[in-house]
């Protein structure tokens, strides 16, 4: 994504929004100017910022947890036919279930606080990383493995010099693909049993206080968070996987 294209996209969205606001003329669709005013004040007085940080922490913690658990398991499944035969059917049964359906159950089991929210986003990322890393590990040419073994590599060196670097791009692809879903589900998860997070902020302002400009400010913050995460993954990929650049 080029910087200029992003700028243009933002500009077009703001114009469309402004025009729509002028046509509708209702409090439920405030103009972008009104929203940006409250965005700035709420950011400055810490209202919005604290919710933003709470949400970001939940996303980052679950991302970390998902990679830490799914990547090694994916490598194992990709390399061992036997394990793959045992676990794949299970994975294919669980993978297509929209994880958002587990929200009530997870909340029931893990109660209030950050942990249940982290678990829900974790579930989404976990399967995505698992599937992609497994496929990547399974697609490593046997010739590559054999020739690295002939250089003296045992299991540990193969992991360090072949499997780990081979699975990095798969992890990053998985993250890029699931950042959007993760943010969407974060919103749902934050509707319940919390007073922190952008989901709460949006819902509280929109449905309880009827403060629509603040609600939109929350939505903008959510969108910016998704964008920021997406760019971070891109940046890491350019750093860690330079061979993928065409």
């Amino acid at each position, binding site marked *: 994504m080029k910087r200029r294209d992003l700028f243009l996209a933002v500009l077009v969205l703001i114009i469309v929004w402004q025009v729509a606001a002028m046509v509708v003329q209702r409090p439920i669709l405030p103009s972008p100017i009104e929203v940006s005013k409250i965005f700035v004040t709420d950011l400055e007085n810490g209202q919005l910022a604290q919710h933003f940080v709470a949400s970001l922490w939940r996303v980052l913690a679950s991302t970390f947890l998902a990679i830490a658990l799914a990547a090694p398991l994916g490598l194992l499944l990709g390399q061992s036919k036997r394990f793959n035969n045992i676990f794949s059917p299970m994975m294919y049964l669980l993978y297509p279930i929209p994880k958002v359906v587990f929200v009530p159950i997870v909340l029931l089991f893990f109660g209030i606080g950050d942990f249940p929210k982290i678990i829900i986003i974790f579930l989404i990322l976990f399967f995505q990383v698992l599937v992609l890393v497994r496929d990547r590990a399974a697609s490593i040419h046997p*010739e590559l493995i054999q020739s690295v073994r*002939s*250089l003296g590599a045992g299991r540990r*060196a193969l992991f360090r010099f*072949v499997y780990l670097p081979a699975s990095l791009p798969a992890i990053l692809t998985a993250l890029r693909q699931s950042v959007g879903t993760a943010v969407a589900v974060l919103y749902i998860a934050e509707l319940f049993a919390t007073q922190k997070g952008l989901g709460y902020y949006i819902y509280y302002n929109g449905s309880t206080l009827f403060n629509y400009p603040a609600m939109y400010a929350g939505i903008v913050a959510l969108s910016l968070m998704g964008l920021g995460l997406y760019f971070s993954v891109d940046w890491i990929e350019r750093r860690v996987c330079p*061979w993928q650049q065409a």
Partner: protein
Amino acid sequence: MILLEHLSFTYPKGTTVFQDFTWKVGRGEAWAVLGPSGCGKTTLLYLLAGLRFPTSGKIFIDERPLTRPRPHTGLILQDYGLLPWATVRKNAELGLQIRSFYGPDGKHAPDNFQLATNVDPWLERLGLGPVQDQFPHKISGGQRQRTAIARTLALQPDLLLMDEPFSSLDAPTREGLQNLTMELWQEQNLTLVLVTHAIEEAAVLGQKILLLGHPPNSSTVIFDNLGAARPSFRDTSEYIALTRHLRKKMEER
């Protein structure tokens, strides 16, 4: 250097490629193993590399039974041998890095291994200096095989195993690399076993040629070709006569 004693090898699926097969390779010899695809020549190389194990019989290398990949054996495959995410230089360093990773344990690396990762002389010797920071998919097939050679020779092997190393290259590049292989074989005092399906390649590089046929292979059919392994050999009538003879023998088997 190499001794195969009454070796048999059967794939789990049931194909027997070698049955009571005995073969000897002397130190410093240059062998070509010639045969059609499916004759078991790649399997033979994997057996010699310690990556597969015989169903029965024994393999000795340097008078020791072979139980795992041996630090002083180098293996070069046709393709896919390089790490796609590492530059030419990093690929050339890989063997040394793996040795440093384990340290001189006598299993993954020789006991007397000195920790070192300097591959500059090899990059220069093989003309890879200008492309050392490129990734494998950005360089030519010939340069990729040179990188594989650099990586292997940086470990100072005494036995070099090559599986169809040049068959995906165009003719001039192939001849250049064949000449290079001969030079390195002499320079580094290597024992060379090169597997190929190309009669010309076997005749150029093999001072001795082992002909394999449809499996199971049990008798060794060997041709002496002591004129080989010199660059001018391709132009001699001896070479032409040998290729004709080999072609006939290959059809008979």
